[in-house]
């Protein structure tokens, strides 16, 4: 036998051209041959058929081990199957024959006139298949957290069975650590869920038991590997493994501790004494309790409340300021639907039409122009001079002497007289009033006033409304 590179026998360490490798690959190819031939005949369509096939193999296997009588031909297998298994739908004679033929074709068994004999290849392949199926069965019999842990333990056992005997079982130690890691991740994920479950204790205990078993196995493994030459490579891996397992054990232990504490609490009588010091320390520890402690953090506490042991406890979590979206009205929703239903995408490109500015000319007589200018000038003046009183006065009057206008429109005060006079001049300026001399020499009323005209006749001019006089605020 060729000298191996490492202490362990592994196909990855052997020379590709070595005759052993060729033979090994032939074995695998014969396995593939059986599977593909059976597959072509629809043997692997349903789980039931596969199981029947494995049962048949088992019969052949047992015969080869001398556990059962020799098998003469396919018919013997057919009857033995019926006797042996409690199967309401056993494979037909033809089916059994087909299987036997496939096995013969791939050299798993040899058919002689009076005997069907299991060949060496066939035996090893059948063993492998049955082991594979049983491993899977055991795997699926655990729940999802248990599966990773089971697989980790299996890794340890395989490592024991293979590596210890000089045959590589694959990277079992690494695989084991990875499996434990997966289990812990899953456990963390489901931790709150489990604490919220009133009946979780058995499962928690099971998980913890698996963790503890694993720890023992891992220790053992590591001891074994310390003697192997390549243990140096494994140092990192081992440290990691120890850390991971310690975490896992603490985690499962902590969960049990908390759970047991909670369950035990249910059995205590109701009391009414509270020691503040204990409350304080508890809250302090709640911030970041060690993994294996029996002190739950706030989220775990909420999980326990989910068990709803006290009435309505599960509903009574926290009071949080509410966040509400602004309400949408029915109309708005309808509009949105309408828009979506009738939406038509714009196909034509949007053309930006440039509008040309058009200049038009308007003609106007000089007189009109002047009047327009005057009008706006007047409005400006009016803003500054209060002409309301005078204008109001001429609503009712056609004409009157100046002094009368001033005093009757306003008061006899001097300041009002000045204002009125400015207003009148403004009105005259805008051609609303005119002032003429009194030709008829009408008699003037005498007024009590605190001011006097500079010249006596000044107040006697007649103020007269012009024909187009209108009050401005009515003109619009």
């Amino acid at each position, binding site marked *: 036998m060729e000298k191996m590179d490492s202490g362990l026998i592994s196909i990855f360490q052997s020379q590709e051209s070595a005759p052993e490798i060729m033979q090994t690959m032939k074995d695998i190819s014969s396995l593939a041959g059986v599977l593909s031939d059976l597959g072509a005949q629809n043997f692997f369509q349903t789980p039931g058929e596969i199981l029947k096939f494995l049962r048949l193999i088992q019969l052949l296997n047992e015969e080869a081990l001398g556990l059962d009588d020799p098998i003469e031909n396919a018919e013997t297998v057919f009857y033995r199957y019926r006797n042996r298994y409690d199967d309401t739908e056993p494979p037909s004679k033809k089916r059994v024959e087909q299987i036997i033929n496939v096995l013969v074709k791939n050299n798993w068994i040899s058919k002689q006139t009076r005997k069907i004999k299991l060949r060496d290849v066939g035996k090893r392949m059948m063993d492998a298949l049955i082991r594979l199926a049983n491993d899977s069965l055991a795997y699926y019999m655990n729940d999802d957290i248990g599966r990773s842990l089971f697989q980790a333990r299996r890794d340890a056992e395989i490592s024991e069975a293979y590596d210890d005997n000089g045959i590589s079982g694959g990277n079992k130690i690494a695989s084991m650590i990875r499996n434990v890691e997966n289990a812990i991740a899953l456990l963390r994920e489901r931790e709150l869920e489990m604490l919220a479950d009133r009946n979780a204790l058995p499962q928690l205990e099971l998980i913890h038991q698996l963790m503890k078993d694993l720890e023992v196995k891992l220790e053992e493994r590591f001891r074994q590997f310390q003697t192997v030459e390549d243990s140096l490579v494994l140092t990192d891996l081992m440290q990691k493994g120890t850390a991971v397992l310690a975490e896992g054990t603490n985690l499962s232990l902590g969960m049990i501790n908390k759970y047991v504490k909670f369950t035990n609490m249910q059995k205590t009588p109701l009391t009414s004494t509270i020691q503040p010091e204990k409350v304080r320390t508890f809250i302090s520890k709640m911030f970041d309790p060690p993994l294996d402690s029996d002190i739950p953090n706030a989220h775990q506490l909420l999980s326990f409340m989910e068990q709803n042991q006290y009435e309505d406890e599960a*509903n009574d*979590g926290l*009071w*949080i300021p509410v966040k509400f979206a602004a309400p949408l009205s029915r109309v708005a929703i309808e509009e949105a639907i309408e828009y979506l239903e009738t939406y038509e995408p714009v196909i034509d490109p949007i053309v930006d039409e440039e509008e040309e500015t058009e200049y038009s000319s308007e003609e106007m007589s000089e007189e009109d122009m002047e009047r327009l200018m005057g009008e706006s000038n007047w409005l400006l003046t009016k803003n500054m001079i209060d002409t309301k009183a005078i204008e109001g006065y001429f609503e009712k009057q056609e004409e009157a002497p100046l002094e009368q206008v001033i005093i009757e429109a306003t008061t006899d005060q001097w300041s009002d007289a000045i204002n009125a006079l400015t207003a009148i001049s403004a009105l005259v300026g805008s051609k609303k009033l005119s002032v003429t001399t009194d030709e008829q020499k009408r008699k003037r009323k005498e007024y009590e006033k605190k001011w006097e005209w500079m010249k006596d006749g000044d107040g006697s001019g007649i103020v007269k409304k012009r024909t187009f006089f209108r009050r401005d605020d009515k003109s619009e």
Partner: protein
Amino acid sequence: MDQELLKKELSFEETTNPNESIEEINVNPLNVMQSIRGILTQEEELTFMNILFSSSASIRSGNFGLSRKEVEKQLGALGDDNRFFSFITRVNQAISRYFQLIYDGKRDQVVALMRVPAHSARNTLSKESLAILLYMFYQQEVLQHEFTLFDQLLDALGHETKKANQRVLLNIDPLKKIGAIEDYETNSSERAFQLTAIGVHLFSDSFLRRTAEFSQSNQLNKEEVLKFFKRYNLYQKGEGE
């Protein structure tokens, strides 16, 4: 049911006539929620909805709820104590299982809180945030301290934790964001925090009871727990004012 009533009493700090709510036991709150329009007038209903809306942290960050004056204005009852408190009482009676309106006299705000079941409550605040708030709650409500210093928090919570300083700070932030605590101005340069009305009401009675039970490793009478956490005093204080 007594506990339910108690909660109503706790819903605001001052109440003009607390007996009002004791007289009427509300057996089917969900029904009442549908017929809330029968209990509230149109303005009151609108005001309630506005409070719900304005309590949203994301809408007006740092500025929760409505001021009392704004509520009174919307109710059309400026300066009318009776109508203001009667409004809060009636809303709380109707919806006590799902919401509570709280009035924070000091900060002058009326905020709506929503009850979150234990399962969903885990998604609201981190476990560290809750522990920090619980510690402050203990200090300020039970021990009646006016505020909690950052150093006190660190001493109490961080002794076994790596990077405690950063972790505490990081988890104080969400508490401030939902308005449960606020910075407290002290004369010294030390950082200090004070609970707001939201922070005072955030923990449910059940949560406090379980906390106390775990700390004592014993089942406790709920009434005693609430007394311990000064949840009764809250309302007595209001009565005295």
